[in-house]
């Protein structure tokens, strides 16, 4: 985005803000998916531990799977052309 020095500083600030917003979308989605995957799958593992008495393997498997899924989503965003 080209900034003109003659523009009002508020206009320039808003343009810069829009640029940052545009760039932040994929990063925000990757970070939320990473945390979401760990919490969701860790939570499912924890529930399975309680219901079936698998403790601590349900929680551990859930957390590991959550990290794998979360990082896979992160890699997809980073490697996006």
């Amino acid at each position, binding site marked *: 985005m080209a900034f003109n020095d003659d523009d009002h500083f508020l206009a320039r600030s808003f343009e810069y803000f829009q640029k940052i917003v545009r760039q932040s979308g994929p990063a925000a989605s990757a970070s939320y998916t990473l945390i979401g995957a760990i919490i969701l799958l860790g939570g499912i593992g924890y529930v399975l531990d309680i219901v079936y008495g698998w403790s601590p393997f349900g929680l551990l498997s859930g957390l590991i799977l959550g990290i794998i899924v*979360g990082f896979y989503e992160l890699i997809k965003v980073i490697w996006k052309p």
Partner: protein
Amino acid sequence: MSAAGNGHEGGGFDAGKVILNHVSNSSLDHPIIHIPPIFGIDFSVTKHVLMLWIVAAIVFSLVSFTVRKYLKQDRPIPSGFMNAIEAVVLFIRDSIILPNIGKKFTPVWTPLILTFFFFILSANAIGMIPVFDLLGAINRFILHVDASDSHNFINNILHGGVTATANYNVTAALATITFITIILAGSRAHGFFTHWKNLVPKGLAWPVYIILIPIEIIGMFVKPFALTMRLAANMTGGHIAILAILSFVFIFSGLFHSALAGIGVGVLVSVPLAVAISALEIIVILVQAYVFTMLSAVFIGMAINVHH
């Protein structure tokens, strides 16, 4: 508000109970509007359902009225509230939807994403307006209705939190709409079967697919889950923080058996801190509506613009 609602048990102040009563939904045992169960499901209207209706009515009437008034003008120059609506709509379209979804499908998905933004923003914001607290005060001190009168309509609507978006069921419903939209957007752009094929990259060795397909399917469900938890947790967290700080007034009053101690803590600590956090909450309200909108646009865009 009932004695239980105030958290008084044996004369003590139960901060946890008061906070929970102010952020959670009202109980199904005392619904605002009672509806007989249909197929075993209780469809009675609780506080958060009432708030959803109020928010939907406000957003629909306010936006429709303003836009219709603008369209009827001889010269289409926006002014007043229409100016604000136009600025927000243009910002969301140009900064969120267009870069993520692309030019071709922007007109298709812009209405849905804008509806998300205005609805979530209004639902978040209405939680900061103490309408029901004011109604309760009028009921108690002007109309002189007893707080324990369970047949009084205003007493009934005082139970439960005002912020519908702090309820996980509400945010889950919104995230489900996004989840279905992701599938519809992908199917519309590439065809139903190609959309599912696009989930994984082409041309890989078959053993890789055994790992990738389950990961992608789990990833599909993780996205709406992240949307659900983030919005509800942020909206609940802010309100809990404010209420916990305001609870110091009553906790210190009880601790020192003196109203003066409570008032002192209130004036010096609780009220200034609560005001500061409320100011922060106004930013949170905007940011959360914006983040939900942006993430929905990103996820829909990922189904449309497939890059492997």
